[in-house]
């Protein structure tokens, strides 16, 4: 067996016996579906929830029927403006000239109740206008000279599910590619110094490049396993979660074969790139704890790109953006999950970018690993 193979086997054996790594991976595999289930139940509850509107004055005839049908419950209060701060979700004053509405935009329940109220009032206005026009012998369709018939290519439930996945899956994949092997990476680099085994290891005739490759392969493998396991457990959970009813059929979310293939490929590239980065940082560190401190900023790197997809869903940059590591992976995964399409150019640039990142970090780690300062500092 080659030196790299010997080191790989030994590192893997140590990783498998390391409770920290196994617990981290186990928690991620179990925690993600649980979090997903909780989010799903909370959001489902929001849709079915009844919101309270505190009011004064007289509700116009016919409007009360619409209110009852749309999950808005009306309660008479003394001061709607004051009640809207805490007691009820909306405050409404019905006057002969119209409606005064009070709500606190910082409360999500108030925002939802406001949207419902505006929708009902819009329908009420349209119905009243149509009735008035008909009474005067005018066809109400005159108000809508260019009627539009919408034919959505996917159900709202599917759209919501894919939009959710396009943020959550890349985030989980990237986070697990980093954290799944982080402990192992620091153990294989900074840990050698801390345990005082580095000198003995470097004293063997094994080429240092081969030693480093063995370590990187072991860390990459455990990162990949962690990422794929977390995604798989989440997909199993998603298959059990109801995302609403579409045309009378309960809708569950699933990944297309293309999206699944892209994710596995990117998980592989990300695992190797992160392994190179974390082993490099670990080689710089004197001990495990210092290595953790060095690696902390990496967590932000994983969060920011995924956040872009969350806050700017239609972010469609040029090919140059796909050279930015991590962001490129997020964008490619988003396209694969959301649109079931991946541009060959974007995938090629993304792959090249991640491979170059990994190679540069490996080179940096190798330079550090062969420097005398590595021993003198320890």
């Amino acid at each position, binding site marked *: *067996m080659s*030196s790299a193979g*010997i*080191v790989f086997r*030994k590192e893997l*054996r*140590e990783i498998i*016996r*390391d409770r920290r790594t196994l617990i981290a991976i186990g928690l991620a595999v179990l925690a993600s579906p649980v979090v997903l289930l909780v989010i799903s139940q909370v959001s489902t509850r929001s849709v079915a929830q009844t919101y309270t509107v505190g009011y004064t004055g007289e509700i116009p005839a016919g409007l009360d029927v619409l209110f009852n049908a749309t999950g808005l419950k009306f309660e008479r209060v003394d001061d709607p403006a004051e009640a809207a701060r805490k007691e009820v979700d909306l405050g409404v004053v019905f006057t002969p000239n119209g409606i005064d509405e009070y709500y606190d935009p910082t409360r999500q329940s108030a925002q939802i109740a406001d949207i419902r109220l505006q929708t009902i009032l819009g329908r009420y206005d349209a119905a009243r206008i149509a009735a008035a026009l008909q009474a005067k012998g005018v066809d109400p369709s005159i108000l809508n000279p260019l009627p539009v018939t919408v034919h959505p290519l996917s159900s709202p439930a599917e759209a919501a599910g894919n939009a959710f996945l396009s943020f959550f899956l890349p985030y989980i994949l990237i986070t697990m590619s980093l954290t799944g092997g982080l402990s192992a990476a620091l153990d294989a680099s900074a840990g050698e110094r801390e*345990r*005082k*085994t*580095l*000198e*003995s*290891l*470097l*004293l*063997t*005739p*094994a*080429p240092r490049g081969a*030693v480093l490759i063995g370590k990187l392969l072991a860390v990459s493998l455990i990162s990949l396993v962690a990422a794929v396991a977390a995604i798989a457990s989440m997909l199993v959970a998603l298959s059990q979660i109801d995302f609403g009813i579409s045309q009378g059929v309960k809708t569950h979310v699933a990944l297309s074969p293309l999206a699944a293939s892209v994710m596995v490929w990117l998980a592989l590239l990300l695992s190797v790139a992160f392994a190179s980065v974390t082993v490099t940082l670990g080689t710089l560190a004197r001990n495990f704890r210092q290595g953790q401190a060095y690696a902390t900023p990496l967590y932000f790197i994983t969060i920011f790109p995924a956040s872009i997809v969350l806050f700017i869903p239609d972010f469609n940059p040029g090919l140059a953006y796909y050279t930015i590591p991590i962001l490129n992976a997020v964008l490619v995964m988003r396209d694969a999950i959301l649109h079931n399409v991946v541009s060959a150019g974007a995938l090629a640039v993304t792959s090249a970018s991640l491979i170059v990142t990994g190679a540069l970090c490996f080179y940096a780690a190798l330079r550090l690993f062969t420097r*005398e300062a590595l*021993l*003198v500092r320890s």
Partner: protein
Amino acid sequence: MTDVAVRVDRLEKTLGRNEVLRGISFDARSGEIFGLLGPNGAGKTTTLRVICTLLAPDAGSVEVLGFDTRTAPQEVRRRVGVVTAEFGVYPRLSARENIAYFAELSGVGRARAGRTSGLDGELNKRVDGVIERLDIGSFARQRAETLSSGQKQKVAIARAIVHDPPVLMFDEPTSNLDVLASREIREFMVESKGRGKCVIFSTHVLHDAERLCDRVTIIHEGRVVASGPTAEVRGTHQDLEDSFLSLVEAAS
């Protein structure tokens, strides 16, 4: 035996701004225990690190059994075993796995092609041999994290000698050990000498050096202040410690 195993010639080394070695020269021979003595900070560890190729010399040269440390570092590493006071072991591997790992990295058993799994016969034989020689058998299957300091030191020695190197270097090997474990190390050095190994013993415990070493070199502030057979260096002084103190004071 009087073959020169390690030749250090006008060795100079600076670490950062610290000029650690300033032209050190000595020879260590096969079949002897050679003492490298000096106070803390004299440059003993740096000298050993240059000999075993962990550090490169700034000037001068080091040869191990004819191989220059600059031009043939891997050949040198194949022929050297080092035991230090910091006997770090891999805690989640057993004592045996620790030894086997270093044996494999040192090329033991690698000549056998076509092996598919497990340790091959030659590797097993070599690992079992050092386990028996150092009396490690009773804890060979235990994880290293559960071993005592003395047991860990034995594992550290085993991994340093498992490839049967002709040159053994001990850098303050007993400084973290109790009396019994220290005695075992000393006995091991004597046994290795008997097997024709070149044993380089770096220490500031002069009592040990006087008992064990055939020849010594005393270094102080990166320079050799005395070198020769132990009795000759002791000279007219009562013991090596007196001689050492007078030499160091004279050099300061």
